[in-house]
C-alpha cells in the first residue's frame, strides 16, 4: 500500500491505496465521487474525464499514485457557487439524454474552451473526439459548446 495525498473538489485527502488502483476507482470508491462514471476499459469513451491540475485527463488512464500531490476537480466540484457556464449550456441546448457521458463531456468541453474560447464546429468536434456519446449524435453537444462559448465560455 502506498500513502497518497490529493485535493479532490477542494477537499484535502490522505489515503492508503494499492499501487495499481486507477484514479477513477479511487475517486468513486475511496473519495465517494460517484458522479464520475466508467464507460470503457480502453480509454476510448472519456466518460471518466476529470481535471488534474487544470488539465482534463481520463481518470481510467491515470493511477491514483500518479495523482499524488495533485488537485483534482470532478464534475461534482465544477460548480463554484453557481453552475459553470458549460453545465448551463448543456441543459439549455439539450446536450444530454441519459447523462452517462455527460460528466466527461462537460469536463472535456471546459478544457476545450479554456484552450480555445471561440471554437468552430470542426474544432469542437475534433476537440471532443476522445469522448463518446450514444444518445445525442453529438448535434446538441456541439451546440451546447457553441452556446457556452458565446456566453463567455471558460466560466
Amino acid at each position, binding site marked *: 500500500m502506498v500513502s497518497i495525498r490529493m485535493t479532490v473538489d477542494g477537499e484535502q485527502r490522505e489515503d492508503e491505496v494499492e499501487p495499481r488502483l486507477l484514479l477513477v476507482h479511487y475517486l468513486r470508491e475511496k473519495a465517494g465521487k460517484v458522479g464520475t462514471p466508467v464507460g470503457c476499459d480502453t480509454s476510448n469513451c472519456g466518460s471518466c474525464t476529470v481535471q488534474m491540475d487544470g488539465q482534463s485527463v481520463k481518470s481510467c488512464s491515470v493511477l491514483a499514485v500518479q495523482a499524488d500531490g495533485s488537485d483534482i476537480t470532478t464534475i461534482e466540484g465544477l460548480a463554484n457557487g453557481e453552475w459553470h457556464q458549460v453545465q448551463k449550456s448543456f*441543459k439549455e441546448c439539450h446536450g444530454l439524454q441519459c447523462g452517462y457521458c455527460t460528466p466527461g463531456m462537460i469536463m472535456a468541453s471546459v478544457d476545450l474552451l479554456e484552450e480555445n474560447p471561440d471554437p468552430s464546429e470542426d474544432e469542437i468536434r475534433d476537440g471532443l473526439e476522445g469522448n463518446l456519446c*450514444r*444518445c445525442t*449524435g453529438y448535434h446538441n453537444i456541439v451546440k451546447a459548446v457553441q452556446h457556452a462559448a458565446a456566453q463567455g465560455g471558460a466560466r
Partner: protein
Amino acid sequence: MTATEERAATSVGQPLRRKEDDRLVTGRTRWTDSVTAPGLLHVAVLRSPMAHARVTRVDVSGALTRPGVVAAYSGADLADDLGSLPTAWIASEDQKTPPHPPVTTDKVRYVGDAVAVVVASSRYAAADALEAVEVDYEPLPAVLDMEAALTDGAPLVHEDHGTNLCFSYDEEHGDYAASKSKADVVFRRRYINQRLVPSAMEPRSVVVDPTAGADSYTVWSATQVPHFVRVFLSLVCSIPEHKIRVIAPDVGGGFGSKLDIYAEEAICLALAKKLGRPVKWTASRSEDMQATIHGRDLIQDVEIAATSDGRMLGLRVDLLTDMGGYLQLLTPAIALLGRYMYPAIYKFESHSFHCKGVFTTKTPTDAYRGAGRPEATFVIERALDDLAAHLGTDPIELRRKNWIAHDEFPYTTVCGLEYDSGNYEAATARALEMLGYDELRVEQRRRRDTGDPVQLGIGVSTYTEMCGLAPSRWLGEVGYIAGGWERATVRMTPLGKAEVVVGTSPHGQGHVTTFSQITADALGVPFEDVEVIVNDTAAVPWGLDTYGSRSLVVGGTAIRHAADGLIEKAKLLAAHMLEADPGDIEFEAGTFRVKGSPASTKTIQEVAFASFQAHSVPDSTTPILSADHLMDPQTFSFPHGTHLCAVEVDTETGMTSIRRYVCVDDVGSVVNPLIVEGQVHGGVAQGIAQALFEEAVYDDEGNLVTGTLVDYLVPAPPDLPSFETDRTETPSTTNPLGVKGVGEAGAIASTPAVVNAVVDALRHLGVDDVRMACTPERVWRAIQDAKEGRGGDGGDRAAEGTVAYSGDSTASTAGGGQA
C-alpha cells in the same frame, strides 16, 4: 398566478428544459454501479474463451485460496439455485427453446458464456481470483455461418434439438404468385444486415441487497424493464415475487440492450440469497460487448414483382436471422416484429414473408433500437432505390407512384394493419426543398460527366414504423407471454402538488419532463409542481416498462386519461364546496367554476386540500384526489418521414463523408420539440453508424474481434455531421394526445438513406450494392470489382472467413441478381 396559469395551459408543445438535467450535469447521479451497502461483496464472472466447447471440469478451489475471496461456484454448484433464463416469445409451434442456465453446466456456446463465478471483498480481488479457476474444455467446431448451420451434418449448438433451426415462420398476405405472374419485372436481391453491438454508454451492472428490507431482496439493475426483471427473477431464482423489489436507478442508455433478463441479474440474486450479504457485479466494457445482447444480423433476400412502368405489385421476403447461442428474452421475436413493415408505405397487393431463426455460437441477439423495423425498412428502402435504378426512374418518382396518398387514410395495408394518418407527400416535399434535391442532382451529373474523383450520391428513405407496443390481444396472438398495457396514477398531494406514477421506465428519454408537461396541462398546475415517479417496483406496482417507442403513446395516454379522471372526481367535491350541481362545474387551467357565475371558483389546490381534510365530502365521492387509468391500446401508431442523405465518396480511397443529412419526420403531435429533436438526432446517428462504421466481426474460431471500443467503431464527434431536421405534424387519430412515438424513428430511417447515397454515388461506375458497414475498404473494393466486371458489394474482405458470414455465403452474398 395569471402568468403561471397561462404557462401551465401551454406546457405541451413547448421546448421546456429537462427536469432530469440538474442532477445529470452536476454529477449528483445514482448509477447502479454507484450503489453500495454495508458489507458489499463483488462478483466476477469467468467467461468462456471458446465459442463452442464441452466443459468437462470446473475446479474453483484455487480461487478460494486467493486473498479476499469469500466464495466461488461453478454452474453445477449453482444448479439448484438458478433456473433457466426466460424467453418470452414463441415465434412458431416448432420453435426450439433450449435451456439457458445463467452459468453453464454442460457446454459453452459463445465466447463470453459464463462458466464460473467468484465473490470477493473487492472488485479487484474478485477479478484477480478468476485466473485461479481451472476449466477443462473439449473444443467443438464453431458454428458461425447461418446457411452452413442449416446444412445436414453441421455441428449442433444444441444437440438435443437435432438441428440449428430455432424456428421457421411463414405468412402470406394476398397472392404473391398471382402478382408475380402479372409482373413485367421481378427484382431480386440479397441484402446483409450486419451484427451490431448496442453499446449503451453505461455498461450493465446489478446490485442485490438481501438486508435492505425485511426478509426481502432489493435489486438495483441497469435495466429498461424493472417490472419484467422482478417477475422473471422470481421465476429463475424461485423467490416469491412479492419478496423482490427492483429499482432501475439512473440508467445510462439502453437501446433495447437492457430490455432483457440477464444471467448476472439472476446470479447476483442467487448469491445474495446464498451468502446473506449484498453483492455487486458491473461489466467492464469488453465484458459488456461479449455478454450483452447484440442486434440485427440477418441475411435478407427480397423479391419485388413490378410492372415496367414502376407499379409494385408483390413483395417476397426471405430472412435468416441469427439467434446466437441461446435465446434471450425476445430473441426469436425481433425479425418477426418487422414483418408487417416490409410493405412499408407502399400499396402492394401481396406480401409473402418467410423467416428462419438459426442458432450459432455467437452472443445472443435481441432488440436493438427499432427491433425488426429497421431491418424491414433497410430492405424495402434499399430495394426501392435499386429498383428505381433498374427501371431508369428517379427514386422519389418510384415512391410517389406507389405510396399511400394522404387522402387515402385511414388505409388498410396488405398486412391488414390500418394506418390511421400520414402525409408522405408533405414530408417528402419539405425534405426535398430543404436539401435542394434538384440542384444536387445537377451537381451529381456534372461530377459524373467530368469524372471527378469525388462523386456525389443522394440517398432516399421514406419510412414508416409501427409504434406504441402494443395491444395486449395482438401480443397474445403473435406468441408473446405478456400484455402491452400501461398504467398511470395521478394524484394531488395535500398541499396541492401533483404526483404521477407510471410504469414506463426511462433511461435517458426525458419522461419526467414530458409527462410533467402532459400532467401540468391536464390539471392546470405549474410544470414545476409535478413529480413523476418511475423505475421502482415498490413505488410503481404496475408497469410494462420502456421499449418499442411506447412510453408516450401508451404511458403518456394513460397519464392523460388518469388526469382527466382526477378532474372528474374533483368536480364532485368542487360542486359541493361551491354549492352547485356537479353538471354545472367547468374546469379550466386549474380552476373550477360554476357555469354562469364566474366569481364562484375553487382552485384545484383548494379542492385537493379539502379532499385531504375530508371534513365535508359528499356521498357521491371519496376523500383524496387520485385517479388511475389502465391504457391498453387498440392499435399501433404509425410515424413516418422522409430522410435524405447526400454523401461525397472519394473513388480513389473509398472514403465516404456525409455532406448533408436532412430529415422531416411526422411523429404526430409533439409534447416537447426539444426532446423529440434529440431523439431524432440520436437515432439518426445510430443508423448512420450501422451504415458506415459499426460491425460485430467474428473470426473463424468464433472470437469477437471487435470486442472493445478500440475495434468497434462507435462514432465519435468528428465522424458525424450536424443534422437538418424538420417535422410535419399529422396527429394520430387513435389516442387523445395525437402522438405517435419517436424513440426509434431516426435509427429506422437513416441506415438505408446513407447506403442508398453511397451506392448512388457509384452506380454509374457499375456498383449496385455496398455491404454494410460501408467502410473505405469495402467501397474501394466494390469500385474495383465493378471495374473488372465482377458484381460485388465490397464484402469479400482480404482475409476471407474473417467476416460475419464466412466462406461460401460471403461469395454468394456478393452482388445479387436482377432478372
